[in-house]
């Protein structure tokens, strides 16, 4: 897209530079900075506008929206929190009961993070550091299941959970999330353990520390940034997930997650768009707040493996 704009026009070659490529160079160097800023501005707009729109509609009244749908300005006088009231108040009060759903989502997300970390930290450490039989096969297994379509396991899991009574329970949902996030978590943590010099651990081993002592006292504290990043990523996946929540929990309103509750909300015609947008804000805000608080960790942790290609 940039190339066509920066090709030098024929008359420009008549300028003092006899070498045409020098002119081209000059034109590119003059034009590209502008192109760059336009690109940045467009990308930021494309990213931010939908979220702004979400927020905007959530505080407008539905009549206002229908009368003037093209208005993108927030008039402080007209701000209405009715949509939020309706979303958050309990179903017995005629609301949508999202507070319960938030609690459910929080429970599932936290449970998933704790269990995933508890099993993937040791697993990642072992795969990164310790030599044992089957180590390579295990890495291959994780990569394999990571790439595996979740729709395929969705059907049998649906059946199995229905049988053992885990369908419709938050515990069952958390178990699925744990299994789905383990491969990524192990990958991220392992990449980080690989960068910690072994000499530190060897010194502690020589001082008479046991292997588990070394992990607890040396490796874990050093891997803290990566553990944080992994926790955040897992939390994000668990909070945002939709397919399994829909499959497992749809029958029992008290156990819905926020994502599922919002999706169900859109199915009923009598719910106005403003309420839907207020629900979207309720769903989005916690995860975005968490993201901005911890962005640095996450960005580094996620792209840690990128250099290796």
């Amino acid at each position: 897209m940039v190339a066509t704009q920066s090709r030098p026009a024929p008359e420009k070659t008549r300028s003092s530079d006899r070498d045409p490529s020098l002119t081209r160079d000059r034109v590119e160097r003059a034009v590209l900075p502008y192109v760059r800023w336009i690109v940045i501005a467009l990308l930021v707009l494309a990213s931010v506008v939908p979220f702004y729109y979400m927020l905007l509609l959530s505080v407008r009244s539905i009549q206002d929206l229908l009368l003037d749908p093209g208005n993108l300005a927030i008039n402080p006088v007209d701000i209405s929190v009715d949509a939020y009231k309706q979303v958050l108040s309990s179903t017995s009060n005629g609301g949508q009961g999202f507070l319960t759903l938030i609690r459910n989502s929080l429970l599932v997300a936290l449970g998933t993070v704790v269990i995933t970390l508890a099993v993937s930290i040791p697993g990642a450490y072992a795969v990164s550091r310790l030599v044992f039989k089957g180590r390579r096969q295990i890495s291959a297994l994780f990569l394999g299941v990571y790439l595996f379509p979740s729709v395929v396991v969705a059907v049998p899991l649906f059946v199995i959970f229905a049988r053992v009574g885990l369908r419709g329970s938050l515990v069952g949902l958390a178990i699925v999330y744990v299994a789905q996030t383990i491969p990524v978590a192990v990958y991220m943590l392992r990449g980080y353990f690989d960068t910690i010099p072994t000499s530190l651990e060897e010194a502690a081993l020589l001082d008479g520390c046991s292997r588990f002592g070394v992990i607890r006292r040396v490796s874990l504290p050093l891997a803290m940034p990566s553990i944080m990043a992994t926790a955040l990523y897992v939390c994000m996946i668990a909070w945002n997930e939709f397919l399994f929540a829909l499959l497992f929990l749809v029958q029992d309103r008290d156990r819905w997650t926020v994502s599922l509750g919002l999706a169900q909300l859109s199915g009923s015609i009598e719910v106005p768009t403003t309420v839907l947008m207020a629900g979207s804000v309720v769903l989005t805000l916690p995860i975005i707040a968490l993201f901005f608080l911890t962005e640095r960790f996450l960005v580094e942790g996620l792209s840690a493996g990128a250099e290796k290609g």
Partner: protein
Amino acid sequence: MPNRRLTLRQRDARAGVSLVTPTVLIVCLVLLVPMLWAISIAFQDIKLINIRYAGFFGQYTLDNFVEVFQSSGFWSALWNTVLYTFGATTGSILVGLIAALAVRRPFKGRAIVRGLILLPYVAPVVAVAFVWTTMLNPQFGVVNNWGTRFLGWSEAIPFLSQHSTAMLTVIVFETWRYYPFAFLFLMARLQAVSKDTEEAAHVDGATPLQQFRHILLPQLLPTMVVLFTLRFVFTFSKFDDVYLLTGGGSGTEVVSVRVFELLTSRKDVSAACAQAVILALVLVVFLVIQRRATRRWNGDS
């Protein structure tokens, strides 16, 4: 001394096995066993009603596959899936590349820009899908309102409910949601590129675009290939985006949405499994071809 080393190694091996066991166990129980079972169900005749009696073994039959291959719905869903996956994957990588190049050199507010760019990727799919459907709504969506007011559209465009635009819109949505992922990886890779070669090329008279073409792009290509593989695999079996935007209507039904419909509305567990297994097989074939191609390409250069 050698004796002690040996025992340390043995102890490490034992520790390794015990540390890795929980992860392997969970992955096997919750992913691997269900996957094998899915394959087995695909070869049996099981509906949601008689699911109680379903097991690993039973009356194996090829009927489900025959049925799947004979239904026109499956072939169009597969075609839609391929179209959707190629469009969204290349789109997100291209936009991600442009974004990474634009944000490459430091400037004031770069960290904020990076954070804002990542928003679509971080936000929950249900919420962003609803914002998009609302924005694109023909009656009160801002896009159609502005389009008719400022861009001279003669009438509102029902982006998500007419055949000519629905698939494209879904692809644009997917590109929007996943270009940050490509951006993140390509930025990390760009950071690792040394500036020396580019400076040398500049001295030799290479223009910025020539530098990109001959110096940066070759270094970014391996990352782009990995990204393409990852995004392709994930998008190929993606369910929520299409389901939430169109419900699979207007020519956007992809295989995963079809699997879901077969399971929940037709209650045909076996047909659902058969389609899911075929989906996975197509992916495996793709991965093998892709691996071969990269290896050949690497061997050539």
